[in-house]
């Protein structure tokens, strides 16, 4: 599938209708999501024919992109059942078979290394400090191949240290720096859109 085509399909997905502030619910835009998955597949061969988990899947964007790029089995996990309902519908509309699990990532009971790849856009931890690190450490246990994730550029050094030292990742590499438009979903955002710098990371467990 061509990049533009993937981006177009992701752009047609339904997104959070009632985003919950405390869960940091905002979608990864189609531009960033399609590039993240394209790189995971074309540069590293991490998607097609693999088992892929989407941590904090929300309305399913990253998992659906994985399925569109030929993942053999995709599992989306989110703590919010309303998002999962939208995600299921999004997957069904595109005739994709994706499994969803209603679960808090922190309490996920999963056999170690049971998936090849984890893709995620975790809560940045602006509402609940440290949630991005929790996502990362669990992703590094569950994945056997690689973890692709987005984190705020301001936390780059901290992420690298945590991944390599605390989670014993073999490598932690920033693939590119992106601008992430967090739309004005929340009243406390004064401007229409806050444009923040975000790193696309690849971690090898």
């Amino acid at each position, binding site marked *: 599938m061509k990049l533009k085509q993937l981006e177009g399909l992701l752009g047609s997905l339904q997104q959070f209708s009632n985003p919950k502030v405390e869960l940091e619910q905002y979608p990864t835009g189609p531009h960033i999501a399609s590039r993240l998955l394209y790189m995971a597949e074309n540069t590293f061969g991490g998607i097609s024919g693999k088992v892929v988990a989407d941590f904090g899947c929300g309305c399913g964007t990253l998992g659906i992109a994985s399925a569109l790029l030929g993942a053999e089995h995709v599992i989306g996990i989110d703590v919010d059942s309303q998002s999962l309902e939208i995600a299921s519908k999004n997957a069904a509309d595109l005739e994709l078979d994706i499994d969803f699990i209603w679960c808090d990532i922190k309490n996920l009971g999963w056999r170690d290394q*049971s998936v090849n790849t984890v893709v995620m856009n975790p809560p940045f931890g602006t509402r609940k400090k440290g949630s991005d690190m929790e996502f990362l450490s669990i992703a590094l246990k569950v994945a056997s191949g690689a973890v692709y994730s987005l984190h705020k550029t301001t936390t780059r050094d901290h992420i690298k240290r945590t991944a390599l030292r605390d989670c014993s990742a073999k490598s932690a590499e920033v693939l590119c720096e992106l601008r992430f438009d967090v739309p004005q979903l929340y009243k406390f955002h004064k401007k229409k859109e806050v444009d923040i710098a975000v790193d696309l990371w690849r971690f090898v467990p």
Partner: protein
Amino acid sequence: MRLLTHNMLSCNIKGVSNGFPLRLEAEKWVEKEVELNADFLRGIFPKIEWKALAGAARAIGYDQLPDEADASMLDSDDFLRRFHHALLELHVEEGALVCPETGRRFPINKGIPNMLLHEDEV
């Protein structure tokens, strides 16, 4: 929920030492055909807990898997077909996953297992 997902999940309640495999109680399930990918099946075979897969398949009325399996069987097309069917083509829609140690039930609705823990379980 496919049985491949079931094969990865365990019960994570505080204090539970062996939460795998979750016993599957299936009330409603569907079959959806997907293309067989032999390379995928060979690659994932070593990661599969066979007994858990065969047990879960039996719980939804599919008894065509042997009780035990080893890698030499992957040369047989017939075995691959059954393995593929059990792992990827059976979807549990309604039912529950039950912790083997505590008996705690995790309901499955519209194909989605609810694995949320209560406050006193974490």
